[in-house]
């Protein structure tokens, strides 16, 4: 087997294992809730007085059948997996009879639109800024470092709240929440796109700034480390052009930063979900929040599963890229997971 194939097999094995563990956690943890989750929901619905006895009975039998609560836990897990494989995430408890699939699919595009560009652009900008700070030194470095440290230490939701207050309330330049105006209906017209863009600015920038800050700090210390390395002094002594040296430093320092990207994706996903709540952005974070409030287990499980799968896939893609460009993996054999 070629070194790259071995590296890949190793990675695939670990990701599959992580996926199985997450699916099992996803299934078994909510079942630790004392008593039968369906009973709890039904009694809550009955207290709320929103549903008639007949409707409750219908909801009740739907869930007992769907969760297979009359069967053994292992059989239930099997049923859960079979449904997952068919792409059926079940029925929402909170928004009966809406299917979880429909709730998720209307929220997913907003979350993707928020997260994908922040990850890619934030990583790129952060690394450029970090490398610049390390290379220039002096006040550029001090300014960039303190700024990056401040932005990367402010929690996602903290920055979101500060931006929301500063640029939507104190200075009413942007809307205070949502992904588009109440009056608008999603369509591909200029009016709607502009409206959506205005709603996008604040949540997007709040996530971007945190990612840029975190990546810049990492890149700065990697680049300072490389700048102090012997090969740089040697190249300088030989009179190698500065541009060439900088390229070498950047290439060496950027490799660990690619791993750093993989590691920050999970945190970013979590942070972005909560940022959505701050801005009432209609993505998965808001769906999760509403589901938690209503003890809507099928929806909670669907969101956590989806976030897990997305993070695992993103991590895998980063690892794949890493394997393709790391000369050590290309040349030699694989390392640990």
């Amino acid at each position: 087997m070629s070194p790259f194939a071995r590296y890949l097999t190793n990675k695939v094995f670990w990701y599959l294992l992580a996926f199985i563990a997450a699916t099992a956690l996803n299934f078994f943890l909510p079942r630790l809730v004392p008593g039968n989750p369906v009973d709890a929901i039904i009694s809550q619905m009955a207290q709320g007085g929103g549903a008639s006895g007949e409707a409750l009975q219908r909801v009740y039998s739907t869930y007992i059948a769907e969760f297979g609560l009359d069967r053994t836990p292992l059989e239930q897990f099997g049923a859960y997996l079979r449904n997952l494989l068919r792409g059926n995430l079940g029925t929402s408890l909170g928004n009966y009879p809406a299917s979880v699939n429909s709730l998720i699919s209307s929220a997913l595009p907003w979350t993707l639109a928020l997260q994908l560009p922040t990850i890619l652009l934030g990583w790129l900008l952060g690394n450029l800024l970090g490398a610049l700070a390390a290379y220039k030194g002096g006040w550029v470095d001090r300014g960039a470092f303190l700024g990056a440290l401040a932005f990367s230490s402010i929690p996602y939701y903290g920055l979101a709240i500060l931006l929301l207050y500063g640029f939507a309330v104190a200075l009413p330049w942007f809307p205070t929440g949502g992904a588009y105006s109440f009056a608008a209906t999603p369509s591909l017209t200029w009016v709607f796109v502009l409206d959506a863009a205005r709603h996008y600015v604040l949540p997007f920038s709040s996530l971007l700034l945190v990612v840029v800050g975190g990546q810049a700090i990492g890149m700065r210390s990697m680049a300072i480390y490389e700048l102090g390395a012997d090969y740089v002094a040697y190249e300088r002594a030989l009179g190698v052009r500065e541009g060439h040296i900088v390229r070498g430093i950047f290439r060496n320092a950027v490799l660990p930063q690619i791993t750093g990207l993989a590691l920050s994706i999970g945190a970013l996903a979590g942070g972005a979900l909560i940022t959505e709540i701050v801005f009432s952005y209609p993505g998965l974070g808001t769906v999760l929040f509403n589901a938690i409030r209503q003890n809507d287990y099928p929806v909670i499980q669907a969101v956590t599963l989806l976030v897990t799968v997305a993070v695992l896939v993103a991590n895998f893609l980063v690892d794949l890229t890493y394997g393709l460009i790391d000369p050590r993996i290309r040349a030699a054999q694989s390392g640990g997971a």
Partner: protein
Amino acid sequence: MLRALWRSGRFRVSVSLIALLVGVALVGPNLSDANPRFAVGGRYNPPSAGIWLGTDAIGNDVFVQLMHGLGTSLYIGLVAGTVATVIGVVVGTLSGYLGGFLDELLMGLTNVLITVPTIVILVLLSVALQNRSTLLLGVIIGVTSWPWTARAVRAQTSSLKVREHIDIARLSGAGTLRLIGLEILPYMASYVVMAFVLQLSNGVLNEAALSLLGLGPSQSISLGRMLQSALQGEALRVGAYWAILPQTVLLSLIAFSLLLLQSSLDEFFNPRLRRR
């Protein structure tokens, strides 16, 4: 060593900030016997002479709540940080020192837990545990965040264990636990302290994140719970900045000062990170 550390401006600033925050959290709630859950005014009364930071959505005194919330948040962070660091150090040293099958097993577990997003495990655990005390919440956060520490500690341990003084101790008949405790841990104490500092900040922030999702401590006032109720009460949209900005700033300040402390320690203990 402390005197040398004290020369670092970052270290001085961060330690003073942390001391101030802890001091306020310890003294604050005892300054007056005001009940943080007692309404002293109407919905979102602006700051005034008697009520320094105004009132929240249900008329509670924001300043009094803040004093109690700060302590709760720091306490949850401390529990989470301690739990995570202890598990991380135990798993990391055993895995790194003993090697073999145990190492494979523990590191497999660690890698799986690192890959699954923390927020997912946190949400699932918190949903399963309906009645969450501050202690329980700290433990939940701690048991989800140790893998980072474990992985780093293992790397340190396996590079330390080939040193000569370990062989000498082993030859003189020291047991595994004694060896790890006396010959390995002291050599990475600075590292463990730095990891602990990061875990503290992680714990405080995760509490707030969980609270914002509606999974905060069931009975106590924490900074996260205050943040959540202010957001749900539309404090920002009605312009009641006093009910939402103070806890946001405090949370950011806690995270910033801990990160600053960690970075100053890092520069002190890893001279290669300093410019030549």
